[in-house]
């Protein structure tokens, strides 16, 4: 089975790799590129721990082939912080205690980031529906919701200040 050459931009950096067609995106990220932020949870596209952004959309990287990402732009949790400064979403999860064991957190962060790009001022219901593809077994979600609400306020404040 022949390997395929792919060129994929991940967190702003372009990588050229030869991948086996059956390599899943999450394995490519973790094992080839040492980007271990996206976690392997259920492996059947239910839990959302492996969530990353591909071409501006949240997807589950356990159910996507690396070879399908040829020419794509991928964002993982490692790409959220900027030069050591936490992204507003990360800061909000930290401040609001939006995590306990932390296993689901990379997926929650990347999904929340994309949700707030799509809907900068979501209602609580919209947040719950928006993160319904990400399971957390610790928090009961309350503080995650608070964190997303807080991140929405931070992002809106910073965009108002910038304007």
């Amino acid at each position, binding site marked *: *089975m*022949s390997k*395929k050459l792919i060129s994929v931009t991940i967190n702003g950096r372009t990588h050229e790799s030869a991948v*086996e*067609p*059956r*390599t*899943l995106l999450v*394995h490519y990220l973790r094992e080839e590129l040492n980007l271990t932020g996206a976690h392997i949870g259920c*492996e*059947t*596209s*239910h839990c*959302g721990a492996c*969530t990353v952004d591909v071409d501006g*959309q*949240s*997807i*589950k990287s356990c*159910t*996507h*082939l690396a*070879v*399908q990402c040829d020419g794509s732009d991928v964002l993982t949790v490692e790409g959220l912080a900027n030069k050591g400064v936490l992204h507003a979403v990360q800061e909000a999860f930290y401040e609001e205690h939006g995590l306990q064991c932390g296993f689901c957190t990379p997926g929650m962060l990347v*999904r929340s980031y994309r*949700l707030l790009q799509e809907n900068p001022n979501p209602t609580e219901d919209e947040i719950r*529906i*928006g993160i*319904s*593809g990400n399971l957390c077994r610790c928090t009961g979600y309350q503080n995650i919701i608070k964190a997303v609400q807080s991140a929405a306020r931070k992002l809106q404040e910073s965009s108002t200040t910038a304007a």
Partner: protein
Amino acid sequence: MIPPRFEYHAPTSVGEAIQLLNDLGDSAKLLAGGHSLLPMMKLRFAAPEHLIDINRIPELRGVREDGGNVVIGAMTTETEVINSPLIQAKLPLLSEAAKLIADPQVRNRGTIGGDIAHGDPGNDHPALAMAIDASFVLQGPGGQRTVAADAFFFGTYMTALAENEVLCEIHAPAFASGTGWAYEKLKRKTGDWATAACAVVMRKSGDKITHIRVTLTNVGPTALRAHDAEAALLNNALDESSISAAANAAAAICDPAEDLRGDIEYKTAMAAQMVRRALKAAAARCA
């Protein structure tokens, strides 16, 4: 879990995909959104030697209007079905029902065509397609043919789609003004298939029902059209007695498989309940 080894093909036209299907025969599978096929490959329920990825075929995407019909490309994702202004305006049942499928990430990848062509009775689009009188455009080496949704599903994972054909488009007449519609889906949790679900499309003239479709999800080897339930409603008013008659007629054709979602009796009772709810919800939307 890693899928078994396969050769990967990424055609950029339907013609190229059909050529590959024709050459590779039953050792090949089409890869659409991948959210049924890739998990099945990981679990070794499927082990195709060749995957033909149809995600890079532009002609399979998009939603357009053609006369009184809405034409939906088979590779249109659930997210696109939800957000399409055309579907929202002309076939609102589809955009609302798609919100009940899986979760946001899966809806970004999962496609309407994949949901239909897979032939899984748990999928929602088969019953929805029957309820809106949809037809499917299938293309093979000899050209195109059109099959009504009603005549497409033969059994679990068995459809009218031949091994060397690609499902290209879903056609459905735009709802006439005043059409009522509903999809009532009972599920245990986000991402689960329906325990039972019912789609209804209804038109009324005064109190009298002049058009009615009642279809069911996941209570048989395929999605079901409840003809007897429709007959119990057509030319009648919607009241407690016609609702009960329709719900009982729908329950009579249910043949669900017992699983963790419930036993046969429970699923059949829930199907009847979804019929009752969907009829009331659709009637409330009739103008």
